[in-house]
Structures are given as structure tokens and as C-alpha cells.
């Protein structure tokens, strides 16, 4: 494909061509209109001049008779740039005047000649010079005919001049437009080329590449920016995926090894003790399945496939249900679960996932706050700054400030918590669920002034403003 062909296929150039055609049509109309108008104006002037002269000649004739008329015409005809004067006999033969020949039959009708006519003038240079003129014919009572006319060469020259000037101006404009469009089209093409170059690199696997932006904030920049935002999201998802597979390899090897060891030990045993070992193995694999389920759920939620099942849900009801569900468990380990739930908090969400997320938080709080500074776990739901905030606050050891971002990641567990059962995926799921609900997950200390073992952890699930 030739370079020009490519250029013509760009939208900018195509549109420009269309505009050029429309513009040319308008300009052509303008040329004809302007020249036509000026011609009419000049013709009118010619007529006026001729009419004035005819009136004068009539007056001369009335005052001074035929001789006076002849003298007057003779004088007028000699003036430089004179009009046309013809005196003809009743049969049309030219008797006097400054015209050599006329179109025949022109003198037969009194009044204005209908059309401009051709004639030849007496000149020293050439007799062949044919001119065009407009004339008025006057019939005298003695049968003589007098023609007064005015050459149209000048108006015609003027018209041609105007037309030529307009044509030249239009030509220059068209050429200029073409050059500008060519430049714009090329510029657009170059930028698009740069964008496709960058996307080729990205396709080749370098997801950290970004499309170039010029910083002018024009359409191309906006396109690049939104594509870059998309790339950012893809990179994040991809990174998450890689992280998951890495962590799966690392963190699932341990329980699998344990499983295998137990199976080996069971093989060595005999009788009823084998049954116990098998039960342990089943328990171990259940834990593994649970981990896989949690992983799957997180990636599904992150991929947004669960977003289809969003509906208006009563968050207050979910919170009450969950608190009621977990309350006896908390009590069993000597903790107190207290709820401060504002009624009627309706959000757009997925009931099961919000329930699961809150369940994870309550489970964490119960697991880690056991033996903390204060046995109270407080769940509160209310509106803050127009947003719906669900918080779970415990008074356990909490999470050090520099680790708070870390613990949300998959499989990350603080050393102190490794002894407790768990998958290390609880907060990751909560975060994914919050992201799906266009909300945020914030971790803070319940009591920042508390001692080393009593700062506590407050987890805020911040939902965007509810519909009501």
C-alpha cells in the first residue's frame, strides 16, 4: 500500500476531502454569483449612460435640426473612448458614425437591442477587430435612424478579471488546505503508529509498557490514558495471577507434604489406628479444598464475574445475621460480640459475598483477640461522610502499621498468627469483595495508645453511598 493510499484511508484526510468538495461547490457558486451580479450592475450603468445620451441627442435634434444633430454626433464620436454612433437611412444603410459594420437588421427596431451584438469600429490598426456592444436605436420622424451604443468590452474584461481573481484565490486556499490536511493527517498517522508500536511491545509480553501521551490532553491523549488505565488493570490482574501461582507452589506444598507424610504413616500402622489416621488425612484434604475454594472465590470476585449477581441488599440485616451467627462462638472463647447496627442500610451488593467477608472478619477477630486487653469485639454499621461504613473492632494484639498493607495480600500471615488455623486468604477475599462493591478496606488500630499487646485491630469496610 502506497503512503498516499494509507494517508487517504485515515479518517482525517477523508473528512478533509469531503469538506474540500463541499467548499469548492460553495466557492464556485460564489464566483458565478459575484461575477453575474457585477456584470448586471455594469450593464445597468451602460444602459443609464446610453439613455442619457439618447435624451440629449433628441433635445439637440429638436433644438438644432438635423444639421445640429450631425455636428453634435460628429463631435461626440471624435472624443476618446467615445460611444458608438450610427446614423442610418430608412433602408438601414449607414450614413455616418464611427462604426464600420453592424449585425444586419439591428436598426429595424426602435428601442434597446435585445442582446449585445457584434460590430466593427473604424480604427487605424485593424478592421477585423470585432467588438460587442449594447445599443439604443432611435427612429427620427424623417426616417433616419440613430443608434447610440456602448462598448461592452470593459465590463466583460472586468468580469473576467474578477473571475480570475476569485479562481486564483480559491486555488491558493484549496492548495493550502490540502497541505494543512496532509500535515495533520500525517501527524495523526505518526501518533497512531507510535501507539501501535507500543501495543505491539505490550503484546509481546512487556505489560509495563505504556502508550505515549503528548500531554496536550487531546483525543489521542485521552485514548492513550484510558488504554493505559486498562493496561494498569490488566497488569495488576496478571500480577495477582502470578503471585497466586507462586504462592500456591509455596504455600500448598507444605500441607501436601504433611498429607503425604500422614498417608505414609497410616500405611505403616495397623487396625483401628489406621482409621484415625485416615480421618486426619480427610481433615487435611478438607483444609486444602477450603484453601482452593477461597482462592477460586477471590479470583472470581476479582474478575468481576460475581458482579452480575448484585442487587439491593439490606446490609443491616446481613450484619445482624452474622453477629447472631458468630456470637456464641465468641462467647465460648470468653469474648463479647457487641453490635451497633443502624437499621435500613441498603446497598447494592451481593448478599453471600458480603456475608462471607464479614464472616471472615468476625472469624479473624475471634481468633486473634482471644486473651487480648479487652474481651469486647464491636461491630458497627452506620453512615459516615455519606458512605456506609461497616467496622469490626477488636482489642487483640492488632497488626503493626507497616504490616497492614501486607496482611491483605494472599497467603500472607504474620509470624505470630501462624500457630492459628487459617488459610491466609481471609482478608484477601474481603478486599476483593470490597473492590467488587466499589468500596474500600481500611485497617487501623482500635486503641493506638494501647500497649504492645493491646492496640487492637479495627477493620473498616467502606461501601459507597447507598441508593436511599
Amino acid at each position, binding site marked *: 500500500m502506497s503512503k498516499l493510499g494509507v494517508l487517504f484511508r485515515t479518517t482525517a484526510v477523508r473528512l478533509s476531502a469531503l469538506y474540500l468538495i463541499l467548499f469548492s461547490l460553495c466557492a464556485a457558486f460564489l464566483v458565478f454569483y459575484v461575477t453575474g451580479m457585477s456584470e448586471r450592475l455594469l450593464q445597468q450603468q451602460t444602459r443609464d449612460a446610453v439613455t442619457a445620451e439618447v435624451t440629449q441627442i433628441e433635445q439637440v435634434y429638436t433644438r438644432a435640426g438635423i444639421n445640429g444633430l450631425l455636428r453634435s454626433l460628429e463631435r461626440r464620436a471624435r472624443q476618446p473612448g467615445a460611444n458608438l454612433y450610427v446614423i442610418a437611412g430608412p433602408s438601414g444603410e449607414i450614413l455616418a458614425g464611427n462604426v464600420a459594420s453592424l449585425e444586419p437588421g439591428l436598426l429595424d427596431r426602435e428601442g434597446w437591442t435585445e442582446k449585445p451584438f457584434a460590430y466593427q469600429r473604424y480604427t487605424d490598426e485593424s478592421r477585423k477587430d470585432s467588438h460587442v456592444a449594447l445599443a439604443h436605436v432611435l427612429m427620427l420622424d424623417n426616417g433616419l435612424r440613430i443608434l447610440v451604443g456602448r462598448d461592452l468590452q470593459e465590463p466583460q474584461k472586468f468580469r473576467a478579471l474578477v473571475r480570475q481573481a476569485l479562481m486564483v484565490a480559491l486555488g491558493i486556499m484549496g492548495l493550502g488546505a490540502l497541505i494543512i490536511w496532509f500535515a495533520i493527517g500525517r501527524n495523526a498517522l505518526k501518533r497512531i503508529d507510535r501507539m501501535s508500536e507500543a501495543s505491539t511491545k505490550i503484546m509481546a509480553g512487556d505489560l509495563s509498557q505504556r502508550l505515549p501521551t503528548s500531554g496536550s490532553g487531546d483525543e489521542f491523549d485521552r485514548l492513550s490514558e484510558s488504554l493505559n488505565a486498562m493496561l494498569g488493570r490488566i497488569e495488576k490482574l496478571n500480577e495477582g495471577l502470578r503471585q497466586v501461582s507462586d504462592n500456591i507452589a509455596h504455600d500448598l506444598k507444605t500441607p501436601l507434604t504433611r498429607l503425604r507424610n500422614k498417608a505414609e504413616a497410616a500405611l505403616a500402622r495397623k487396625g483401628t489406628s489406621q482409621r484415625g489416621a485416615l*480421618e486426619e488425612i*480427610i481433615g487435611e484434604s*478438607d483444609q486444602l*479444598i*477450603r484453601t482452593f*475454594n*477461597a482462592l*477460586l*472465590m477471590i479470583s*472470581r470476585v476479582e474478575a468481576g*464475574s*460475581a458482579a*452480575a*449477581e448484585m442487587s439491593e441488599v439490606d446490609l443491616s440485616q446481613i450484619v445482624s*445475621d452474622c453477629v*447472631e*451467627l*458468630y456470637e*456464641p*462462638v465468641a462467647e*465460648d472463647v470468653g469474648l463479647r460480640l457487641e453490635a451497633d447496627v443502624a437499621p435500613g442500610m441498603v446497598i447494592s451488593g*451481593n*448478599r*453471600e*459475598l458480603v*456475608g*462471607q467477608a464479614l*464472616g*471472615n472478619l468476625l*472469624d479473624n477477630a*475471634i*481468633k486473634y483477640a482471644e486473651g487480648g486487653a479487652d474481651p469486647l469485639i464491636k461491630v458497627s454499621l452506620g453512615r459516615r461522610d455519606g458512605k456506609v461504613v461497616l467496622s469490626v473492632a477488636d482489642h487483640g494484639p492488632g497488626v503493626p502499621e507497616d504490616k497492614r498493607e501486607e496482611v491483605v495480600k494472599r497467603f500472607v500471615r504474620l509470624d505470630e498468627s501462624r500457630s492459628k488455623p*487459617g488459610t491466609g486468604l*481471609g482478608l484477601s477475599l474481603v478486599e476483593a469483595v470490597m473492590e467488587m462493591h466499589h468500596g474500600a478496606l481500611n485497617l487501623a488500630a482500635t486503641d493506638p495508645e494501647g500497649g504492645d499487646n493491646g492496640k487492637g485491630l479495627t477493620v473498616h469496610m467502606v461501601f459507597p453511598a447507598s441508593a436511599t
Partner: protein
Amino acid sequence: MVTRMKILIIEDDIEAAAYLAKAFREAGIVCDHASDGESGLFMASENSYDVLVVDRMLPRRDGLSVITELRGKGIHTPVLILSALGQVDDRVTGLRAGGDDYLPKPYAFNELLARVEVLGRRKGAPDQDMVYRVGDLELDRLSHSVRRQGKEIPLQPREFRLLEYLMKNAGQVVTRTMLLENVWDYHFDPQTNVIDVHVSRLRSKIEKDFDLPLLRTVRGAGYMIKDDRTASA
């Protein structure tokens, strides 16, 4: 009168199906097997089963369309959907297509067995009893009251629903997941033994002042409420 339950498993994984069939037979359930959607649909239409266990992804006709087709023919055999897609929305689409219960893979066989037995029982007796009785324990669904040996036992609303579900399925194992689904109406993984704690509270209320235990823990499966005397009689 002991009629054995008869079920049909529609599952394309031959090995998994053979394992299931063997395990069901050991549990006293008669079991047929179809390995694709079309033959499953044919068998389910021609024979009378108590429960159908249908895998979602099947060759020749997918599980959901088998169910829709059966329902269209006016066959209302309870269906339990098995699926590798264990997500909330999949459950919703499965139940919407006419399934009665949904179990994501991988599952414990005890969980499947308990659900199949509950589904099979449901078919015979429409749930119209206003009063459930197990031994000397009596639950009145209208007045929301529970009595044992004529003595009123006060229960929290949730404890009442828990006991109601257990007694509705008296003599059958109900799993923890089934309790969470049917009593709390949630399908998520509660991570801890929340259900056990609720059950043990209920147990202490209905058994504390009485000699005979009714609510039993079935190891590796779940719970069952049953009057041992009537069972042995």
C-alpha cells in the same frame, strides 16, 4: 415397611460415578447411572426415581437443560445438581433452572448422602404437619412453642428454626452446611465451627433436664435428631 430409595446419577466421569454408585449402595440406596445428558433424560423420563443427581457439565446435553426438559414434561423428581463451578451465581442459575439442591465439587460423600436422603424423603410427604414430634419432644409450628414431657422449653427464634429443621428431617443426618443454608439462609464458608456451637446450645436446652439424649452428633457428617427407643423398637 421399608422401601429402598432409588436414585439416578447422571455423571460423565465414569470413575466418579462408579465410586458414587458403590457408596450409595452401601448406604442402602438403589442406584442407576447414565453417562450423558440424552440417556439421562431418557432414563429419568421412563423410570420412576426418588432423586436425580445431575452433573452440570455433561456430553450431548448439559445438566441444566436436562432439568428444564424434565420439568417441562411435568416430571418433578427432586434434583440435586453437582457442579465444579462452586460459586454463588452458579448456584442461583442452577436452582432457577429447576434444581432443588446444589452441591459444589469437591464434596464429602456424607454431605451428598445426607442431601439426597433429605430430598428423597421430601418427595413422599408434603410438609403439612403443624406439630413435629420426636420421642417426648414436641414442636408446634403455629404457636412457635417447644415442649418436652409437657414442659415448655423457651428458645430463641433462631434456635427454634434450627430445631424445626432438625425435627422436620428427624431420623436423617443433616450436615453443617445444610443447617447454615436452611436455617440461616447463607451459603458461605463460616471458617469456624459456628454451627457446632449453635447446635450444642440448642442441645443443652432440650436435653439438660432430661435423661434421654435426642440430638446426636454423627461423626464426620453432621447431626441427627432421633428417638432411639422408637428406632430400636
